[in-house]
């Protein structure tokens, strides 16, 4: 679900309860209060356990795998130790880059349309559709890319995978672009228009400059999301155990590699998968934290003027 990013971050920590003095009531009401409030804290702690375990366990299993070979070599022959997943690293970067190149422009255009011309019924439906699209099961997008591209071209390909990921990116970019542009004070655009600038110039040059950090935040989050996608790539990019640069051929990604190795009985391959999982987590969390830092910077930057 897409929520406005930049603006609400600061209000996340709301004032805790004023301590009721004197205790509102003695007896069971007071004890029930303490018990239930305590239970919410317990729920919080318990919720952290599996989540912390996933991070810690991946770090523990993955860290020993990471060495120079891991990032530069192809997987070793089955059963032999060592090797790396360079083909999956390259694949993830290539496919995500292609998806970004296709998805971001469309998302930007649609977002600008929503913010600038979005008053009619078409725009209402468009906003609704793009919000709903963010939650569509990603594997169905894989089926779409398969019938749209893989079947006519008669081969699995990195390109078809990138199209699937692009479709998944568009709604997020559209939503953030529209939200961020709407936050820009209308006086800025009107000022530019009053000086004789055409609308397209006022939007692209004046409004965009204001909204850009927020939009970049949205793009980074969208990139982070699709970097971790597996399901839409299963029957589009398909995977490969060799280094491929031709984007119209089947190509590996880190996520596909983890899935492939998850059913492998070979400890050496499982080991490679843990390494890939760790790299993926670091990549995704770095993109998320970077996006957050940018959003924070922007809210401060805008507040300061």
């Amino acid at each position, binding site marked *: *679900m897409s929520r406005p990013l930049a603006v609400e971050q600061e*209000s*996340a920590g709301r004032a805790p*309860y004023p301590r*009721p003095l004197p205790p*509102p009531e003695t007896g069971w*009401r*007071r004890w*029930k*209060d303490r018990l*239930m*409030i305590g239970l*919410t*804290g317990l*729920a*919080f702690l*318990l*919720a952290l356990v599996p*989540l912390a*375990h*996933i991070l810690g*366990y991946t770090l523990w*299993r993955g860290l020993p795998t990471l060495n120079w070979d891991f990032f530069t070599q192809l997987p070793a022959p089955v059963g032999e130790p060592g090797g790396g997943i360079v083909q999956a690293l390259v694949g993830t970067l290539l496919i995500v880059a292609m998806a970004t190149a296709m998805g971001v422009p469309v998302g*930007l*255009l649609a977002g600008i*349309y929503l913010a600038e*011309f979005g008053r009619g019924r078409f725009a209402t439906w*468009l906003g609704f*559709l793009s919000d*709903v*699209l963010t*939650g*569509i*099961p*990603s*594997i*169905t997008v894989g*089926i*779409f890319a398969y*019938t*749209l591209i893989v079947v006519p071209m008669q081969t699995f390909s990195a390109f078809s995978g990138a199209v699937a990921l692009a479709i998944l990116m*568009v709604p997020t970019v*559209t939503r953030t672009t529209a939200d961020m542009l709407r936050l820009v004070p209308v006086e800025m655009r009107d000022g530019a228009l009053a000086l004789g600038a*055409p609308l*397209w*110039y006022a939007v692209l040059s004046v409004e965009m400059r204001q909204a850009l950090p927020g939009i970049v935040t949205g793009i980074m989050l969208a990139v982070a999301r699709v970097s*971790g996608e*597996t*399901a839409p790539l*299963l029957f589009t990019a398909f995977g490969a155990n060799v280094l491929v640069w031709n984007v119209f051929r089947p190509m590996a990604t880190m*996520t596909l590699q*983890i899935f492939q190795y*998850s059913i492998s009985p070979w400890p050496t391959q499982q080991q490679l*998968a843990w390494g890939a*999982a760790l790299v993926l*987590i670091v990549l*995704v969390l770095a993109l*998320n*934290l970077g996006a*957050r830092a940018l959003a924070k910077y922007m809210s401060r930057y805008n507040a300061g003027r």
Partner: protein
Amino acid sequence: MSRRGDLVFRVLTAFGGTLIFLVVVLMLLQMLEGSLPILGKAGLGFFAGATWDPVRSVFHALPSIWGTLVSSFIGLVIAVPFGLGVAIFLSQVAPRWLAGTASVAVELLAAIPSVIYGYWGIFVLAPLLRQVIEPGLAGALGWLPFFQGPAFGVGMLAAGLILSIMVLPTIAAISRDVLAAVPVEQRDAALALGATRWEAITGALLPYARTGLVGAVVLALGRAVGETMAVTMLIGNQPTLSLSLFSPAYSMASIIANEFTEATTVPHISALIAIGLILFVLGFLLNAGARLLVWQMDRRLGGERA
């Protein structure tokens, strides 16, 4: 000159919007077309039968629909109380420094790729279930049909548990936002009337936020239903219809993930696409429903502030 530029600008941006429409319509049409062979042959019987047998070319959707519903249900039954507790804790109880950091952490966890949840589940959750939890459940509650049969580790329960872990951040993050949006006066009024903190939460806060909270749960259900990789890696992948939660099963998303590339016959591919169509429509409806609920909540808040 400038007017022509503006026209181009408007047409170009409208084109971007039209593409989104086009993709959704095309997706629907393609999946309808792709599922015609099986739906034309079996009709509504496609949904009713209990057999999924690619070898004999008999395909029914019920086993995978059952698997999706049951695993999502388990996931939500566990995640909703926990997520709500976390949301109440973060928005009302926790000191500010903790609430800020923890909220960010919760949202980061929602960003971890699902294939990693699945991989972790294979190595940690499934052995734990096989060796400890499932024998324990069978011992304590073995007279119930849900807890009978051999403990494999992977199966319906494993899928449900991993789903609960995965949707918890979604529920917690959105519910926290919803609760934080309730006007402070609501709870303060309850406190002023002598309510305890907990009574203020259950009596004033939660009823006020109900619409938004339901929206959060529906959204989480949408995520659970569409979740593919982690479920595929943990549900056991057998098209069986069993009441036992220990039994391997199949979900709609995982049956597509597993069999789509291997399907060679027209009925098989068509049946998988038909399941994809159900999944698409279901995901669409759940998300649209959640969106409408959250909108309604927003409008109410906006109305009372004005």
